[in-house]
Structures are given as structure tokens and as C-alpha cells.
């Protein structure tokens, strides 16, 4: 049995600011749970994907370090406070630096990480520099999702070209978002092939979601 398999690091950056309190945070909690259970039932994802959760409100916190799916424990999520997206982006950069294995003469490196950012508001801290850094150095394939009418897609566009807009913050839409994340991870862990440097393939976004051009 192959012990030379590479890991696919997956980071979830979740907004837990005050505006997410109540039903939305509950839906996110369910979403993470469903995501884990879906990924565990896909043999390729189970073998390849490692998951980490970073939350942000007044500060950013890595509530789950990069962990293999079988050992992953769902984080306790509580909402409240402002939207420190900048801090989350800086923390993400640090985590990628320390957690993602690089290819060396003696070590098989990890796949390029996959990052999903979910936010429903406008950042309340300094975020531009961290965003620009991520966009220029591309340490990961980042997909950002603006949830609801208050989110600012132009902010997310400064982090990545792949931005989705979810029209409202309903439980149904959030559930769909996490189901889509799971399909994306499954598809990526299957088609991790080939063309070095080519963009990743993602499934079409769920109904009601818009790809921000």
C-alpha cells in the first residue's frame, strides 16, 4: 500500500463575525459536519485531503490545524465581533508556510493547497497587503465566496480571481455551498494529474450562485 501518496491541504477560512450569529453560524456548523462526512466516504478524498479551519472575527484563529480526515474533530464555532479578514489572510499565509510540505530532494511535497473563504461582510482590519501578497505569490488555489448582500466581492477579487456570490445567507444556500466545496475537493483529489501549472477544475457552482467576473 502506497505510503508515498501526497496530501491535498484544504483550508476553510470562515467568517464568524457578529453578522453570522444565529441561523447562519448554525448552518455553517452543519455544513462543516456534512463536508467531513461526504469527504470521508470518497476513497480518493479520504486518502489525499487534509483539512484545516481558520475562523475570523475580532482576530483570526486556526481552530483546527491541518489534519487528516479520519482524525478531524469539528471545531466549536461561535459568532460575534468584527470581520478581521486581513488577519485571517496573514494567518493562512503562515499556516501554509509551516504546515504544507515542500518538495525537496528527500521528501515528496504536498499538492498545492485548496482554500475556501466564506465571508458575509466587509473587512474591518487592514487586509490589502495580505490579499495582494496571496494574489501575486499564489501559494494556493483560492476560491472566495461572498455570502449575502453585505459582502463586498471587489475585496475578494483582490485575493483571487475565483469569486462566487451567494445571494442570501440562508441555511439552504450555506448547505449548498458546503456541498459544492465537497464536490470541489473530491474532483480535485481525483483529477490531480497532469499538466503542471494548469488551473484546477471545479464543478459548476450550485444554482443561485453567481461567478463574479
Amino acid at each position, binding site marked *: *500500500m*502506497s*505510503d*508515498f*501518496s*501526497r496530501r491535498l491541504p484544504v483550508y476553510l477560512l470562515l467568517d464568524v463575525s457578529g453578522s453570522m450569529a444565529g441561523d447562519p453560524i448554525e448552518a455553517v456548523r452543519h455544513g462543516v459536519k456534512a463536508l467531513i*462526512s461526504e469527504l*470521508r*466516504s470518497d*476513497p*480518493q478524498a*479520504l*486518502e489525499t485531503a487534509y483539512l484545516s479551519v481558520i475562523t475570523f472575527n475580532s482576530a483570526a484563529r486556526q481552530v483546527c490545524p491541518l489534519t487528516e480526515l*479520519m482524525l478531524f474533530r469539528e471545531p466549536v464555532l461561535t459568532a460575534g465581533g468584527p470581520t478581521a479578514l486581513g488577519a485571517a489572510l496573514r494567518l493562512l499565509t503562515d499556516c501554509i508556510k509551516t504546515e504544507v510540505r515542500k*518538495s*525537496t*530532494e*528527500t*521528501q*515528496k*511535497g*504536498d*499538492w*498545492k493547497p485548496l482554500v475556501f473563504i466564506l465571508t458575509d461582510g466587509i473587512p474591518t482590519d487592514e487586509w490589502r497587503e495580505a490579499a495582494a501578497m496571496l494574489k501575486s505569490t499564489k501559494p494556493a488555489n483560492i476560491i472566495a465566496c461572498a455570502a449575502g448582500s453585505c459582502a463586498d466581492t471587489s475585496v475578494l477579487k483582490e485575493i483571487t480571481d475565483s469569486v462566487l456570490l451567494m445571494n442570501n445567507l440562508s441555511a439552504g444556500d450555506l448547505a*449548498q455551498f458546503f*456541498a*459544492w466545496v*465537497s*464536490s470541489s475537493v*473530491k*474532483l480535485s483529489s*481525483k*483529477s*490531480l*494529474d*497532469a*499538466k*503542471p*501549472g494548469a488551473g484546477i477544475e471545479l*464543478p*459548476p457552482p*450550485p444554482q443561485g450562485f453567481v461567478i463574479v467576473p
Partner: protein
Amino acid sequence: MNRIGEAILASGRKLPYVITDNPPRGGMKYTYFAPDKSYVVQFFNDPSKVDANMRRRIEAIISKYNPTIPESRGGALGTDEKRAAYFEKRFCWPTDIVVSPEFGLVSPSYPSDFFFGDGASDYLDLKGKDKKSNWFTSRNRRFLNKTELGDFRSMLQMSLLLTRSIRRLHQAGLAHSDLSNNNVLIDPRSGNCVVIDIDSLVVPGIFPPEVAGTRGYIAPEVLATMELDRNDPRRKIPGSETDLHALAVLIYEYLLLRHPLIGPKIFSTESAEKDDFLALGPKALFIEDPNDRSNRPENLDVTISDLGSDLESLFLRSFVDGLHAPELRPTAMEWERGLIKAWDMLHRCENPDCDHKWFIMHDVKNPVCPFCGTRVKSDILQLDICAQPRGKKGQWRKHSTLIAENNTPLFKWHTRTDVFPDEKADTGLEAYICSHEKAWYLINSHAEGLISPMGSPVPAGKAIRLTNGTVFRACREENGSLIKVSIIKGMK
């Protein structure tokens, strides 16, 4: 929340299907199930890729190239009821084209054996999930309960069944083109497998499909030339030769539970993607390459040499000679012959706790289970089956070996040398081995023309005593075989 959709078929017939929010999705298509799950309706991820060419190809696949319905009912040439019934179990062959709401396919659901049931795993909730090969051949194996894992014999049986299915495709000039762990479902408990995703078949005379392929199964030359323009003559596209690479990878995985090319060698430190591209593409190197050991894992306990010389040579031809030279890869027919020979040499491991339970007895002088290291202590009964080369009457050449035990059956392909155990073969029992009061016998069940070592006919119901050195004709006809018996004394 689920809605019911209605698929209108090319024939005008209407079929309902359940629309779900996040349908299972592969590289090409996504799938909805029938309300009673008896069939599936599949649509393409990218409907813009559906063109006249694809329609023509799929129409041909469903009708004149279809080995799962007899020729008399519109199936493939030369397919009779028996062969159609055989391949119906081995392929999940599409049955209809959907024309509305958009272009799609209808395929039968696969049998329940290929879905996990209750108690498949103590760690995971797998009930209802399909049995993709890599649940069993990757590290994921550790999460499954032992009852799901089968044994070496069932893995060998699946290798043979899969090979036969691929041989059937190639015989008709077809190629699967996307053979992978995802497109072959296996049930190691019963030793059955089924080939799915038939719609990307390469059909003679029709422009081939654009297939992305699956990591680990794409032939090295396809991966290496993927970036070239589709019309560039150097660009290699999937076909029967690339199927033969994927087939060899799958057989290797089934028998040895590891991937033949993924080893410790680092090909590039630039990025994981680059390293992987080289490791599976232009620089691919067999982990058991006898001449270059740089990709060999440290502790390879069981290797291809433990599988007997027939399979060893097939693997070397696939992964050494033919890895970068597609024309040198063994054909599916050659694999089928090699696997049959290996099957006849299966022997039960005497260690009741051996996970693999069976191994290939390729060296009776050193009879050790390669998986658990247990030495065989009892006597070994070996029947060398010999054939008369055409035009050389009276000369006998060894054709294959049957390692037998009590109740081992002999079929037509043992008693005759002009019968090959394929899907058409007569599977009626000819004779069987019986061990009685420390002596071995061959009991005739239905064999016609069985002759005793002394030259007298042995009718059904009568037996031949087998001792070391016994030689007899299993069938008196010209194509009947000659059997030489050896008994290798054990330590008991």
C-alpha cells in the same frame, strides 16, 4: 426537496429520475437515479462538448458494438444469448440516449454487490457507497472490516474477469480509454467486478472522445504529450494500447495492493505537480524495475517474482519494456492466458490467520506463502498438462500446471488443449481430484476418452490412482492432453 425529472429517450419513451442538489459527479458526467434506483440517468458536465460526433459514437456503442445484447436483438456481431448474458454482468453498458431535457444517457444500475452494505466499516459510514477499487487497494483498506476484503484468490479472479472484459472490447476494435480505479467497481468478497463509464469508448471509424483520464492510470505517453495541440501528430491519445497500461496497473494493484509507479523517487523539487507529472509521465519508472532500483520502496516483501514466471514476465513487459513503448505491452489476451495459468497454480496457505489465504505455488521445491511466510507442510499434488504440438505426434510439451488438492475440478480446458476457458467455454465438470486414505485419485465425472496409465478406458464414475510419476491421457482424441503427475513430499 428532491424533484422528479423526466427524461425523454430517443425512442420517445419517458423515464422519471430524481433530481438531487449535489449529484455524484465524475470528470465528464453527473448522475441522477431512478425513483426505484433500477437505472441511472447521466448528463454531461459540459453540454457544449456534446456534438454530432459524440452522438454518433454513443449510438454505435449502444447498438452495433454492444456485447451485452445478442446480435439477433441489435447487439454486437457474433454475440449469442450466452455471451450477451455473460457480458451483461461484466459491463454497465448504456441502454438508451436521452434527448430531452438535454443530451444524456440511461444505464442500468449496478448490482447491490457493488455497494457497501451494513457493517462494511467500523470507522466510516459507507452504506450505499459504491465499491471503487481504491477502497481495497490503497491505505483506505485499513478502515474496512475484514469481511469486505476478500483474499488473494478473489483478487486474482477479479483480475481475470476484468481482463476478459477488456479483451472483449479490444476484440471488437473498441477501447475503453478511461480505465481506472473509478471506472471498475469490485467486490472482493465474491471476486466480481463490473466496468462502468462505457460512454467514453473509442469506436472504430469515429473521431475519439476527449478524455481527461484519471491520475495513476493515464499511460505515460498520453500524459507526456498532453500539452501538445490535438492535431499535433506527436500527441498520443487514449486507445487500446493505453488501456493495456491501465489494465496492467489495475491487475498489479489488485494482486499486490500498491501502485506500480508510485515509489520514493523524487523527480523534481520544483513543485508537487511537476514531480508527479514526471513520475507518471515522461520519466515513469516501475518500482520493481530490475535494472534501475531508484524508485524501489525499501521494504518490498512480496514482489512480482512471487506470482510465478508467467505473471512476472507480463508485468516486466508492461512496466519495463512497454512502459514507454506502447507497442510492447502485452495484449489483454496474453494477460488472460497468464492469469488462467496463475489461477491453476493457486494453493491454500496453511496458516489459518493468513490474510491472503491463497498464493501462487510457483516453486514446489520451496513452497512458502509469500504473504505470511508460512511453509507448506503437507504433500503437494502437481499435474503437468501437456499438449502435442501440431504435426508432431507423440511429442508432448508442457502447456500448464495444475496444483491440486482434494476436490480440485478438471474442466474441458484441462482435458483438452484446444479449449480456452473464456466466456464461451463449457464449464461442465469433467473430472475431479479426491484424496482418500492417504492416496490421491482422479475421479471421472463426465470426461469422454479418459485413459488409464495402462491404456484402458476409464468410464464416468471410475477413478485413476495418482502416484508420483503417473502419466495418462485425459482424452484420447488428438487434441486431448497428457497429464504427468508429481507428488512433492511434505514434512507431515
